[in-house]
C-alpha cells in the first residue's frame, strides 16, 4: 500500500507520543478500538480548568501507519483548542489532511471517537469534582 507523505511523516516522527496521569482531574482519557480488530488508540487531553483550553495532548496507538498518523495528527490539532472546538473535529478533516484512501477511513473514525471519549472522560471527572461538594455525596455521620 502506498502511503501519503503526511502519513509517513507522522509515522516516522509521531507527535506527542506518551501518557498523562490518569489520576489528574484535568486529564481526560479515551481508549477506543480493540486488539482483535487490529487497532487500539489511547488519546489523552489535559485541560486548563480556568480557560477550558487543551494545554496538552498525548497518544499511544496500536495499529497500522494510518491509525498512528490519525492519532498523532489529532493530538497536534487538539493543543490550544477549547473543549468545544475539539469536539468539532471531524474524521473527514483527518481523511483530507492525511489523504487517507477509502480502506483507511476507519482509522480517522477511530481518532474522532478517541477525541470524543477523552473529552467525555474529562467532563465526567469535572462533574464528579463539582458533584463531590454536594451534600448527598457526603456521609453525614
Amino acid at each position, binding site marked *: *500500500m502506498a*502511503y501519503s507523505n503526511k502519513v*509517513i511523516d507522522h*509515522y516516522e516522527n*509521531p507527535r506527542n*507520543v506518551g*501518557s498523562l496521569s490518569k489520576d489528574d482531574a484535568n486529564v481526560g482519557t479515551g*481508549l*477506543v*478500538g*480493540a*486488539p*482483535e*480488530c*487490529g*487497532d*487500539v*488508540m*489511547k488519546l489523552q487531553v489535559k485541560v486548563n480548568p480556568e480557560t477550558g483550553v487543551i494545554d496538552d495532548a498525548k497518544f*499511544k*496507538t*496500536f*495499529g*497500522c*501507519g494510518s*491509525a*498512528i498518523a490519525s492519532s498523532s495528527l489529532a493530538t497536534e490539532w487538539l493543543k490550544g483548542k477549547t473543549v468545544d472546538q475539539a469536539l468539532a473535529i471531524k474524521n473527514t478533516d483527518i481523511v483530507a489532511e492525511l489523504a487517507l484512501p477509502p*480502506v483507511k477511513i*476507519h482509522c480517522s*473514525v*477511530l481518532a474522532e*471517537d478517541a477525541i470524543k*471519549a477523552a473529552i467525555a472522560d474529562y467532563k465526567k471527572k469535572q462533574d464528579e469534582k463539582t458533584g463531590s461538594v454536594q451534600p448527598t455525596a457526603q456521609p453525614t455521620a
Partner: protein
Amino acid sequence: MKLPIYMDYHATTPVDPRVVEAMLPYFTQHFGNPASRNHSFGWEAEEAVETARKQVADLIGANAKEIIFTSGATEANNLAIKGAAEMYREKGNHIITCVTEHKAVIDTCKKLEKLGSRVTYLPVQKDGRISLDELQAAITDKTILITIMAANNEIGVLQPIAEIGAIAKAKGILFHTDAVQAAGKVPFDVTQNKVDLVSLSAHKLYGPKGVGALYVRRRNPRVLLAEQISGGGHERGMRSGTLNVPGIVGLGAAAALAKAEMATEAARLSAMRDRLNKKFHDNLDEIYINGSMEHRLPHNLNISFAYVEGESLLMGINDVAVSSGSACTSASLEPSYVLKALGAGDDLAHSSIRFGLGRWTTDEEVDYVVEKLTSVVRRLREMSPLYEMVKEGVDLSKMQWVTH
C-alpha cells in the same frame, strides 16, 4: 549487502540464472510446437518437454507419464479437485480438506459446494497440523477425495502426509496434496506418501511464473480426471492447450536443481532460520512462533511480535521484503485465516510477520533484518497502549473494548 532485502520466498522466488540459461533457446531457436508431429521443429520441442517431464517426475519419485503440465499450481489444484469430483461423482460427492489450505483449494471446494458437493473443512491443532483422528471420523462412504497440503504457505507447517496417505489408501479414497511449498525444499515421494495427485509450481522453486504441474497416479490406482480445459486433448486428454515449452523447460531445470541441491540447501537455510529465530528471542520479549517448529519447512519462520500491529511493522522496515498476517485493508480488518485457525487470538494474528528465506539469503542479511526489526518493534511498543497496559499489569483479555 544490497538493499532492499528479499525475505519473502514463500510468495515467489527469483528464477535461478541456470534455469534462465536452459530456457532461453526455447524462445527463439527451438520455438516449435510439441504437438507438431511431422517436422523437426515439433520434435525438438517435444523432446525438451519430455526431458522436463522426467526431471519433474524425478523430484517426487514419479514416472514421467504421470506428470501433466499446467499454467501453475492454482490450475493444478482446480484440475485435481474439480476433475476428481466430476469423474467420481457416481461414487460419491464428499471431499475432505482443511481450514488452512491455500485459497486455490478452499475456493475450488467452495465452488464445488455450490454445485452440490459436500465438503468437510478439518480444523487444525495449535501446532497447525490436522488431527488424524478427526480425519478418520470425517470419512464417510461418500468420500471420494482428501485434499491436504504438504506444507503451509504462511506458517511452513508440514502436515502428516504419509499418515494421511495411508488412511486414504486403506479406505480407497483419492488423496491430493498441494505440495507447492514443500516440493524441492524437503524430501517428498509419491510412493512413500501414498498420494494420488500432487500440485507443483515452478515459481516457488526458482523457476518461471506461469507454469506448474499436476502429478496424476497411473497405477494402483489409475486415477482419472475430467478435463477442465477442453480443446485438442493434450496431456493425456486432461489438459488441452499448446504447451508452454520455455516455461516447462524452466520447471524441469528448476526441479533438477532442487533435487540435486536440496540436502545442502535445507541444512544451510534451517541454520540461518534458527539464527534469525534465536536473535529475535535474545533481543525481544513477548514474541511467539506460529505453528510447529518441529514439523516445519527449513526456510520458514512466522513470528507474532505481540502488542505491535503487523502493517505498521512492515512500514518501518521498508528495505526488507517480508509479509504480514494482518490485512488491515478493510473495515472488517480481517487477519490471516491461517493464523486465526491456530486459535492464538486475533490480536497475535495482527502482529505476525512471515519470513521466507531462500537460495540467495545470507547471514549478513539475517543479521540486518534482526537489527532493523528489533529497533522498529521497540519503537512501536513505546507507542503501543497495549504494551503499556501489560507492563502496568492489566490483563488485556479482561478489558471491555470499545469496538467500532
